[in-house]
Structures are given as structure tokens and as C-alpha cells.
């Protein structure tokens, strides 16, 4: 009986890659997240939507502890990854971030060469083997479809790339570290439609190997891309469901108002 329960627990864990339990976040006296319970599935794309300031980015950044550097940040509750609480004292934050990659709103390549950008995450782990690094850089750039565009310019500054290329480079840089989860904070909001389409296609391909959580302001994007969508409002999780269901037949009036553009 107990064995059976264990296997159920394990399969649950596998299904629920990320879990939030009664999470509250404060910035000094301001309550940014007001108590959220949520399970995020493995190898799915989960979209966070909601008006600006609703707490979705803050919530996203809990999963790789990027809020730790924000002045006045305080958190209650638990965040679990594969069943492990990542806010326990003994958790190695650097190790955690190798497992949970992040892509930011504005492409933010380092002011270094394309090669150095992709190799950085590996080099800081102490990997010095040139051949391994080279293979890894090539591999990561191929995964994001950038290799053919830059293979002869690996030593050129990453800042010379276009915005869309830079963002794909940032994704490649994240993949090189081999995370299992990728957090994306409005990854296409600073890009033109063509670059956006490329990135979306890429994200869709990535879900085979990775669990992806994406914050977006673009309803269409959330609709086409994600398997699950969560609607946040004023620091609360209003509705969380399969994207198809949420966008066609939302349970809550607030969600409907938001996705039909009546507010926000």
C-alpha cells in the first residue's frame, strides 16, 4: 500500500515539475503576491497572463530566486521543484539556476563575442575543455537555429546581432547550461513580428525537452503557444486551466473581461 502511494507521489512529482504552496510575496509593506497555490506540469508550456503589475513576473522569478536581489523582498510559503523546496536554507542558489534557466524581456547578451556568450554558463562551472565547449556552443546555437547565421562570426561581438538574433542567442546561452526548466519573461515583447514568429516556433520545439513557463502580454501568443494558461490579477491567481478552455470558455468573469480586452 505504502509502495503504491510512493509511486503515485513520484508520478505526481514528475507531472508537477513546479509547485507553489500558499506563496505570498512582499516588497517592504506592499503585498505583491497574495497567496497562490499552483502546480505546473513538466514538458508543457504554461503561460502567465494578466495586466501590468499583477504579480506574474514576480511570481515567475520566484522559481529561480531572482527576486532575492530585490530590495525589501520577502516571501512566505513554499516553492517546490521536483518536490524539493528551493527556498530552504541549504539550497545552492547557483546550482538551482543551472537547472532553471531564464530568458528576459529585452535581449541582454553580454558585451562579448557570440562564442563567449554561449560558453559563459559552462565556463563559470569550471569547464575548460576547448573541444567540449566548442561542441556545446555549436549544439546550442543549432538548437535555436542561429548556427547557420553566425558560424563564421563566432568571435564577433554579440551586440552586432539584430534584436531577434540576440534573443535567440540568449536562449542558446540558457540551453548550453542544460536546464530542465526555462522561464521566459515576455521574451518577444521587444521584437518585430518576424523575429517573434521565429522565437515562438523555437519555444514550441523546446517543450519536448524542457518545462517552459512564459509571461506574456500577447493574448494570441498565449493562445497559440501554451498548453496551460494562468490569469493573474492584483497578486492573485484568478484562473488556471488548459489554454483552450481558458481562452474559449473561461470560468470567471474577470478572465473573460481581460481576454476579450475589456480591461487591462
Amino acid at each position, binding site marked *: 500500500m505504502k509502495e503504491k502511494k510512493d509511486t503515485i507521489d513520484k508520478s505526481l512529482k514528475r507531472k508537477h515539475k513546479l509547485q507553489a504552496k500558499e506563496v505570498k510575496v512582499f516588497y517592504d509593506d506592499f503585498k505583491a503576491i497574495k497567496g497562490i497555490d499552483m502546480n505546473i506540469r513538466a514538458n508543457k508550456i504554461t503561460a502567465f497572463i494578466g495586466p501590468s503589475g499583477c504579480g506574474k513576473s514576480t511570481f515567475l522569478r520566484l522559481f529561480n530566486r*531572482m527576486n532575492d536581489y530585490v530590495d525589501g523582498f520577502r516571501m512566505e510559503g513554499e516553492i517546490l521543484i521536483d518536490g524539493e523546496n528551493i527556498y530552504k536554507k541549504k539550497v545552492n542558489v547557483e546550482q538551482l539556476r543551472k537547472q532553471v534557466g531564464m530568458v528576459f524581456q529585452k535581449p*541582454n547578451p553580454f558585451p562579448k563575442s557570440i562564442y563567449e556568450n554561449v560558453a*559563459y554558463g559552462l565556463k*563559470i562551472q569550471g569547464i575548460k575543455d576547448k573541444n567540449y565547449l566548442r561542441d556545446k556552443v555549436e549544439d546550442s546555437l543549432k538548437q535555436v537555429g542561429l548556427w547557420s547565421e553566425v558560424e563564421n562570426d563566432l568571435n564577433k561581438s554579440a*551586440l552586432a546581432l539584430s534584436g531577434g538574433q540576440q534573443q535567440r542567442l540568449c536562449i542558446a546561452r540558457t540551453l548550453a547550461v542544460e536546464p530542465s526548466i526555462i522561464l521566459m519573461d515576455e521574451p518577444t515583447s521587444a521584437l518585430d513580428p518576424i523575429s517573434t514568429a521565429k522565437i515562438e516556433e523555437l519555444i514550441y520545439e523546446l517543450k519536448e525537452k524542457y518545462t517552459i513557463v512564459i509571461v506574456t502580454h500577447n493574448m494570441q501568443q498565449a493562445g497559440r503557444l501554451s498548453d496551460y494558461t494562468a490569469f493573474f490579477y492584483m497578486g492573485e491567481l484568478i484562473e488556471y486551466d488548459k489554454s483552450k478552455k481558458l481562452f474559449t470558455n473561461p470560468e470567471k468573469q474577470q478572465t473573460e473581461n481581460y481576454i476579450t480586452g475589456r480591461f487591462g
Partner: protein
Amino acid sequence: MNNIKKNRLLDQVFKFWGIACTFLGLILLTIFIGSIFVDGIQRIDWDFITSLPSRKAERAGIFTALMGSVWILVLTTIIALPVGIAAAIYLEEYAKESKMASLLEVNISNLAGVPSIIYGLLGLEVFVRILEMGASILAGSFTLALLILPIVIVSTRESIKAVPKSIRDASYALGASKWQTISQQLLPASFGGILTGIILALSRAVGETAPLIVIGALAYVPFAPASPLDEFSVLPIQIFNWISRPQHGFEVNAAAAIIILLLITFVMNGIAVYFRNRWQSKLK
């Protein structure tokens, strides 16, 4: 309508007032440098730079003072650089929120405003007497290092602060530790700014006179210093000494030495500007 005209007039008036103010400083500086040049330029030749001091104005040179200045410059850099940069990194990246940090910050800003002669007195007591360095190059360098430390710290902090937050975010998000982020992203990205600040601080140090006189730097040194523990003179002291002599020949010498000193500071500032531009274009 009337109001718009009035505003335009005011605009024009202020523009010309601004131009006049800008040129006032420039013109005064040009007059000053011009008159120095007229006085001193014919005295400058290779002999003037390589000759030892002498009682006779026409045979006296700046060699010992120049070498003293070079020694001081190099040692001051070696002392002030690691200390200043490390302190700046600590204040900017590690100690951000503590009360201790804000206390330190206020103190550093205040130190930048302390008259240089006070540093001389400090150097005299601590380095010359307590640490028994004597009136040596080493004591002078430590004193000047203290003097420019606040400038180095403040300018380094500004440069580190200017690195976009997105670079830090990217580095941390890839699993970099704080020190890795600092040493591999923040310092390289802010290197140009840090260098500029240091060179500007050093060009201040090379012109300092008062603190070195207080710690006992000499106006007359017969030989160029050969080790950090030797007695020394520096260019500003040499200039000061020559100007205070009655013979006209020494006045000419002083003007010529001033030209050399100006040249050194201009070149240093030029290098600072060069690096700033180069690193700015690299970051774009």
C-alpha cells in the same frame, strides 16, 4: 504671442550668457598657458630634462624632480589601485543596504573634501614617524595614495553602477556566483570607466605639493632616487622652489618645468579620454 516672444528672447539671452561663461574659463586658461609658454618654451631642451639641479639657473635641470614624480606616480598607483577598486566593489556589490555601508559612504565623500595638507600631516605621523619610512618616496606614495583613494573609490563605484542591470541578471540567471559576476562581467564592462577615474586621480596626485612638503620631500636632491626608500623631490616642489628664488633665470626654469608638468597631466587626461571612448564604443 507676447509671451512666446518673451520666452524666445530669454532663450537667446541665456544662450549667450552660457557661451560667455564657457569662454571665460577657456580664455583665462589660454592666457595663462600662453604666458607660461612664452616664458619657458625656449628653455626646454634635452639637457633641461636630463640635468641634475644646480645653483646656476642655466645649468639646472629637472631630472631628479621628474624621476621623483615618476616614482611617486608608479608607487601611488600600485598602492591605491587594488585598495580603491576592492573597496568600491565591496561598497557597491556586497554592502549595499547595511547601516555600516551608508556610514562608510558618507565618510568617503567627506574624505574627498579634506584639504590635501591634512593628508600630509597624517602621512608625516603615520608613515614617516610611526612606520619609520622617513621622508622617502614610499612615505610620499602612501600619503598620496590615501589622498586619491576617495576619488578612485567614487569613480569606480560609478563605473560599476553604470553597467546595466540586465547584464547582472543574465549572469546570475546562468548560475554565476557573485564573484564570478563581478570579475567576469562587471569589471570588464566597467574597465574603461574605472581606468578613466584612476588616471584623473593620478593626474591630480602628480600635481600635489602641500602634502609632500609636509612629509619632508626636499627641494634640492642632488641625485635621482634609485629605490623607494630614497629621499626625493617632485616637479611641483621644484617649481615652487625655483619661483621663490630672486634670480630671473630660475623663473624661466620654473616656467619650463610647468610646461613639462602640464604636458604630463594633459597626456594622462588624453589617455583617459581615449580609453573612455574606446570602451564606450565597445559597449554599444
